[in-house]
């Protein structure tokens, strides 16, 4: 037996320390992101706050959710969830992102006004289909 080998209590103490550091780091990142919110950095505000959120989420996943200690099976399962989210989210964004705003049937003109500078072409612009053509 190797007297220098770390026992289960040492391993647990190490995990506890790691969790404590992660918790302090998370609170530090929270303070940082709130502090940055008072600075006028334009689009960088969004980029910084989302980067900090990603760092916080990664810390929670890696340390608190114990992905650092997890088997390859668990890591791959977590990664597949994230990859599916990135793929479907990206595809949705390129579909819906470039679309122009259209009023919904239930929206009153007062509700539409702030969203739409001028009303879009009405449906009557569509070519009318004669009843005889529809029955075929």
């Amino acid at each position, binding site marked *: 037996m190797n007297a220098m080998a770390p026992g289960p209590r040492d391993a647990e103490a190490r995990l506890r320390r790691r*969790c404590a550091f992660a918790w302090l780091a998370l*609170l530090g990142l929270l303070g940082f*992101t709130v502090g940055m*919110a008072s600075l006028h950095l334009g689009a960088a505000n969004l980029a910084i706050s989302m980067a*900090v959120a990603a760092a916080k989420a990664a810390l929670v996943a890696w340390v608190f959710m114990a992905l650092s200690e997890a088997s390859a*099976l668990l890591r791959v399962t977590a990664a597949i969830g994230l990859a599916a989210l990135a793929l479907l989210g990206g595809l949705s964004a390129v579909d*819906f992102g470039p679309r122009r705003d259209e009023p919904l049937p239930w929206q009153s003109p007062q509700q539409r006004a*702030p969203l739409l500078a001028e009303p879009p072409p009405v449906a009557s612009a569509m070519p009318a289909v004669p009843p005889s053509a529809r029955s075929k």
Partner: protein
Amino acid sequence: VSAAGQLLGDAGTEAPRTEAAQLGMWIFLAGEMLFFGALVVAYFVARGHSPQGFVAASARTALWLGTLNTAVLLTSSFAVALAAQAATADRPRESARWLWIAVALGLGFLVVKGIEYRHEWQAHLYPGAGFELSAIGGAELFFAWYFVVTGLHAVHLGIGIVLCAGCALAMRWAGRKEARLPARVHAVALYWHFVDIVWIVLFPLIYLVAPRQ
């Protein structure tokens, strides 16, 4: 027993059982990622269409209450992580103590959220007739999204509170006699941390859209 058999907990030892429980929870969480992910994508699409409305609406949210709630939830995740470690180390009473702390912090989060909702109700910031920022396009959409997503998050947190309380009670009553409890605590811990991550992502989307004064 094959590797697959061990994965399903057939070997009768604690590690494969915990691994199987965690695998099941991760698969469930992958579905949850897509559920909340769709709402986040919807947010970015709407924000891209109405940036001014989102800036004006976000400026009316209570940053300090949101910050307090984030700190509360991060601390609760720390407590749940310690509960899972104590369960693994076969200390059910300590594990139950940490779980109760997480339950208390989760309830605290819901109380603060309720205070926030009350402020928004009094300020007419809920979508519909009499909406305070109706002259600014997109502001109503922001608050519609805000109430849906924070409401869904609160429901998830409520489920987490019930699960944590259930685990804590089971730890107290059954303790070491129930061999499946550590695996259950690990699975519930993963769920709790996921709810925490959802809030971490929502926090900047709700409160940090525009620079604060």
